[in-house]
């Protein structure tokens, strides 16, 4: 199958599931950040726990490549926190903004335009940042099993146990 057609079909399923989980909405995203409604946290952890088991099997079988985003501690932390501030204002993230627009939330269109401006702005300042922040704490493409020197499955068991514990606690609290 053509890679672009594959991408489109994958996105349609992803958007369908995001909307069915009701996680594309401002009220749900802000509900999580205000620690009032943990719908997106439930959705998110269910996705990564399932995903990490399957993807690790595919890695072991040599079917899927390992494409690990590198650690740049300075940029990861500063960028992550700036993202968080913007996220609290807009109440959508890049993927869910498209989903929100798809279910008729037209304020997401303003957000998407802002995101395009933000991307263009970053391209302008990139030469300065690449010589400064991006050089702070470069650790390369490392994984948790490498850092702790233990088996992948051990890390996954910890994640799954932690995730199930979190789910149990959230349900008990009615969040």
């Amino acid at each position: 199958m053509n890679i672009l057609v594959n991408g489109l079909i994958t996105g349609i399923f992803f958007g369908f599931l995001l909307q069915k989980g009701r996680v594309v909405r401002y009220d749900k995203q802000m509900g999580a950040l205000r620690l009032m409604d943990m719908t997106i946290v439930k959705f998110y952890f269910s996705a990564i726990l399932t995903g990490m088991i399957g993807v690790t099997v595919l890695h072991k079988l040599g079917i899927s490549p390992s494409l690990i985003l590198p650690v740049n501690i300075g940029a990861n932390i500063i960028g992550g926190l700036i993202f968080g501030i913007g996220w609290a204002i807009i109440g959508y993230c890049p993927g869910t903004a498209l989903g929100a627009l798809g279910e008729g939330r037209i304020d997401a269109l303003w957000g998407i335009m802002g995101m395009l401006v933000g991307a263009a702005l970053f391209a302008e300042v990139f030469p300065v940042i690449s010589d400064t922040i991006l050089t702070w704490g470069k650790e390369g493409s490392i994984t948790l099993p490498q850092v702790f020197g233990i088996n992948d499955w051990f890390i996954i068991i910890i994640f799954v146990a932690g995730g199930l514990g979190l789910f149990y606690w959230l349900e008990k609290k009615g969040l």
Partner: protein
Amino acid sequence: MDNKGDKGWNPYLAGALTGVLIILSAGIAKQYFGASTCFVRMAGFIEQIFSAEHVVSSEYFNRVVPYVDWQVMMVLGILIGAFISSMTDGSFQIKAVPDMWAERFGPSPLKRGMFAFIGGIILMFGARLAGGCPSGYGLGAMVQLAVSGLIVVGCFFAGGIIFANIIFRRSERK
């Protein structure tokens, strides 16, 4: 206020199925989820209309070249998939101001639009500095047990939770 009965699917189920979709993408297309890179590609496309030389000479657009790839199509698909899902279960609703926003900041669509725009700029700048967004780090990196994913996702939530509580707390005092 959300419509009564507008519950959607169980988030655990929808999330687990998304996990299956991530596994299928890794196995079939050899691709991991991500969304913010394609905003750079699209911004480059738009800039090319006005000044092709500027984009060609840009260091960043030489790294993240403006072209349509798997991820651009995937993100476009999100729009279509959410549209199909919401049209078929009656949850599609044209709405310019979210309920929780209106409660705190008032019902003005212009004000909401302006802040969504500003928030979008800040968020995407941060995502590109960090190297990705909740799709790329939150899903794509986390399923591969990447250290970067854990650091960045922690910072997304830390920044988001702190700032959301600052801007919403003021309303309770009023």
